[in-house]
């Protein structure tokens, strides 16, 4: 194998390990994530996991960061192509901020762990802050496209939307609330602020 090919394989293994860790954390919880299990899922040896990630803590930290980065790259593009109508596009963006079953829900479970760990590990803070910054800019742009009234600040509105999605989303995740209801609440708030069609989010 050439050196370049070896590096590429190594990068592939590293990413596979991270992806496997992300899935394990989402399904089993952070406390029950075992290195041996992650290695098996990723199709590598335990020693290779230890080679890439010196400690369990390091793997956890990087898995969370990986999920955040991936969400920032993949998700933030999605709402944009969905529709040329700015209101529908904004609604699609909000949907990307709520824990719908599948990848979104999986990311959410992980982020909950990230929030929790960031409180005690300030070094994780910048990763979280970076994603919020990107989401804020992304949402502000969607808001502006719908027409923000004079005197209202799209940045402030974006902060509120993100916080509402997080606060409602966590309730959905725990099973206290239907996701459709959370969606209607966020949209209801925005419909009031921007004078949009409130019924767009219903049903």
């Amino acid at each position, binding site marked *: 194998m050439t050196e370049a090919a070896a590096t590429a394989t190594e990068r592939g293994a590293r990413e596979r390990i991270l992806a496997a860790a992300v899935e394990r954390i989402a399904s089993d919880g952070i406390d029950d994530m075992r290195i041996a299990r992650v290695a098996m899922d990723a199709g590598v040896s335990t020693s290779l996991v230890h080679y890439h990630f010196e400690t369990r803590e390091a793997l956890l930290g990087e898995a969370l960061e990986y999920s955040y980065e991936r969400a920032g790259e993949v998700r933030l593009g999605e709402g944009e192509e969905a529709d040329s109508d700015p209101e529908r596009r904004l609604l699609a963006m909000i949907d990307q901020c709520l824990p719908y079953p599948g990848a979104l829900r999986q990311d959410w479970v992980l982020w909950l762990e990230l929030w*929790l760990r960031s409180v005690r590990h300030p070094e994780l803070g910048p990763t979280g802050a970076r994603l919020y910054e990107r989401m804020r800019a992304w949402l502000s742009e969607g808001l502006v496209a719908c027409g923000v009234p004079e005197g209202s600040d799209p940045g*402030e509105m974006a*902060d509120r939307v993100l*916080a509402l999605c997080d606060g409602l989303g966590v309730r959905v995740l725990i099973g206290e609330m239907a996701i459709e209801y959370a969606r209607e609440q966020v949209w209801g708030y925005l419909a009031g602020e921007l004078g949009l069609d409130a019924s767009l989010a219903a049903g």
Partner: protein
Amino acid sequence: MSPRPRLDHVRRPAILAAAAEVIRERGLENVRVSDVAERAGTSAPSVLYYFASKAELLKEALTSAEERYYEDLERDLSETESARERLVKIVGGGAGEGDYDAALWMELWARALRDPELAATRAELDDRWRRTIAEIVRYGQERDEFGPAQPDVFALLLGSLLDGLAVQIALGDAEVTPERAQDLSLALAERELNCELRAVA
């Protein structure tokens, strides 16, 4: 009968305070019962006598902190007749640095996902918080200080917003400071309740 129950009023709160400290520092995952015992100046069996598990320590630590919060809040709210000032006080406590124990709350959220008992605890504490907000709204509507919003719907919206902002504050997001969180929340309440709040803040 064991003589220990006579010391309940001393030991239990001391253990809970120690548990809150240790959980805050290390995370529940890395906490051993013996750590809590050591911090409280007692033994592990003694901790286990009062609390069957680490999850129960978390649950009881949060519940007792909430009891103290509501005692203080009740006193605080009774100092003013104005519903608007009451709402501002409640938002200040929720969004500000105040007594909000982000580390413990996030443990509860994360664990509520997998532990039905902790999920029930979260729902109970959340219900109480929302009822408190809704009561102030009803009170304000009676006094014509607030417009005709649905109190329970508003309480959920404000409560969720405050939770989401608390996350951003806890993450150390430079954009969302406690003051800004308060401002963002009051602006939402002003719009929903059709009243002026930031002037009384």
